[in-house]
């Protein structure tokens, strides 16, 4: 059990990284506290697995340090770090039985028989694989194998942390949900730090207390699912979290306030003043589809045509094509009971849910 701290960590698969794009991980500072359940969320290729492999010691970072409880472990191998990791695809020892597979990490540490037996049964029970214990691992189905792989990670109770690298990729959706619950239960029961890598926001938010969103080799935001939803610190978080993601509109500061392709948007004077102080850079307005209001066209300065309505069962997604030169599309999410207007509509964005970004970073607005 340990707190894991990343200090000025960076990694490049190139010999001589010269530009930011050469880095798989760009310099980051981060702390995973002891006992937390964390998710590392991001699209494929953003560096999630690289980061995980660096924490476990399978990869040596090109720059910076990894600290367990304040002690640098850069020079320690995964064996010495005493950490567990579960991989995306099941890894089982074919010739061993399920019991032997689960016991393997404990036997390698030289635990005594009774203790091994006890732990293996405890974990097998938690993962519901007790009936398989005497079977050869080779003949299991893919999801049974993955449960065994996860079991090998969970069976050691003295590890610094358990790292999961998209462990439920090969599992059926129904079982996936149950296993996620199981993991959460196990987390609460054993109080061990867990870091769970995924590209699925739902998976991240059901498992984790706090989510780190990664984008282009950086952690762009670390927060609770609610924080990520309500206050995306980066346009990527806005776009990646939520279904559908945040609407992002390019805006300019004109003489009469915030303008969207020449149309003035009703934004409070104090906010416009703060935006003006911020200096140069690309300005964007972000608004979640949940908060976009469709009104009669006379009631707004911004208009568009309803283009497409997707009924998702419990809610509807309405695409509104703006009548501006760029004909950008704004998505609005309406509840099942709300009426969907047809034809030309007006759009308003409640002030409380307007977010402003300068060069993709959130502009903090003081009240």
């Amino acid at each position: 059990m340990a707190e894991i701290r990343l200090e000025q960590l960076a990694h490049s698969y190139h010999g001589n990284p010269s530009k930011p794009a050469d880095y798989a991980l760009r310099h980051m500072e981060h702390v995973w506290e002891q006992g937390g359940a964390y998710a590392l969320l991001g699209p494929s290729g953003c560096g999630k697995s690289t980061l995980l492999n660096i924490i476990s010691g399978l990869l040596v970072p090109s720059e910076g340090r990894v600290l367990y409880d304040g002690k640098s472990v850069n020079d320690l191998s995964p064996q010495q770090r005493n950490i567990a990791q579960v991989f995306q695809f099941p890894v089982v020892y074919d010739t061993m039985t399920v019991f032997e597979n689960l016991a393997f990490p404990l036997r390698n540490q030289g635990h005594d028989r009774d203790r091994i037996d006890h732990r293996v049964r405890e974990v097998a029970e938690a993962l519901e694989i007790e009936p398989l214990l005497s079977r050869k691992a080779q003949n299991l189905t893919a999801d049974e194998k993955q449960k065994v792989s996860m079991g090998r990670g969970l069976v050691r109770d003295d590890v610094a942390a358990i790292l999961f690298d998209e462990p439920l990729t090969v599992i059926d959706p129904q079982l996936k949900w149950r296993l996620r619950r199981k993991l959460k239960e196990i987390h609460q029961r054993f109080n061990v730090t867990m870091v769970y890598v995924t590209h699925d926001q739902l998976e991240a938010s059901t498992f984790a207390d706090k989510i780190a969103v990664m984008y282009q080799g950086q952690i762009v935001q670390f927060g609770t699912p609610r924080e990520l939803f309500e206050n995306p610190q980066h346009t990527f978080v806005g776009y990646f979290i939520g279904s559908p993601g945040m609407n992002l509109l390019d805006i300019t500061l004109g003489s009469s306030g915030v303008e969207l392709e020449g149309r003035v948007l009703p934004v409070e004077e104090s906010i416009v003043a703060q935006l003006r102080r911020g200096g140069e850079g690309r300005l964007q307005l972000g608004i979640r589809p949940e908060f976009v209001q469709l009104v009669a066209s006379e009631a707004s300065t911004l208009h568009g045509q309803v283009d497409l309505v997707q009924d998702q069962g419990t809610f509807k997604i309405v695409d509104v094509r703006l009548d501006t030169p760029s004909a950008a599309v704004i998505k609005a999410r309406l509840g099942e009971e709300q009426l969907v207007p047809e034809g030309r509509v007006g759009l308003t964005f409640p002030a409380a849910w307007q977010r402003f970004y300068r060069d993709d970073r959130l502009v903090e607005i003081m009240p």
Partner: protein
Amino acid sequence: MKPYNNKAWWLVLPVFVLVAFSAIIPMMTVVNYSVQDIFDPSTRYFVGTEWYREILTDPRLLDSLMRQFVYSFCVLAIEVPLGIIVALSMPRRGLGVPFSLILLSLPLLVPWNVVGTIWQIIGREDIGLYGWTLNSLGLDYNYASNPRDAWATVLVMDVWHWTSLVALLCYSGLRSIPDVYYQAARIDRASSWAVFRYIQLPKLKNVLLIAVMLRFMDSFMIYTEPFVLTGGGPGTATTFLSQTLTQMALGQFDLGRAAAFSLIYFLIILLVTWVFYTAMTHNDNKG
């Protein structure tokens, strides 16, 4: 109307003709010979199973068979573990890979009789590197007169010639193991012995099966190299089955007996190969 006719058989016919000429007809000729005392079509006499009974009690043949089993056993016992060790110590990336692949392929490219000749020269105590070195170390080595030395030389020669095959097969098997298995083993704090025992060896099983069968069949049929090196001597110390067979068929022109012998020889190889195959795969389907 049933969509059924026999036209598809015409498509199988070419293969059938090919197999008939390459295997079935020659084999049946041998079966035919084996039940006759035959010299030419006009000089033949039906003897039934007499040749078979005679062969199975012929001490010269039984000696040769025993020798053959011992030889194949030694070949497998040395070449398989050695091949695995060589494969494990080969580089996984960089310039060393093509270099070691070429180096290992070289012995496989040398024709059998050339291998025999090479070792005939290397083994000589006057000008041969191997023979001369052993003798200068004070060992009385002479493969032409000492049965033990002759055996050792034939074995070393085979190891030199064919271990590469096992090593290359194992190397390809090792390369196909995904990295994640090694990573998981490191996380599980497995020792390098455990990695070999529980990851590499099980994953090598299929290539090892091929290696064991190929090396068994080849070594069981070995002819050219010992024939060139020792001519089967000293005495009959290195006279293996195929040489005995050749002597019988071509030396004595004893076609009926040789035919019966060939069939028994063939069945032994088939049987042993089947036993290997069954033994190495019988666990696969168990729960």
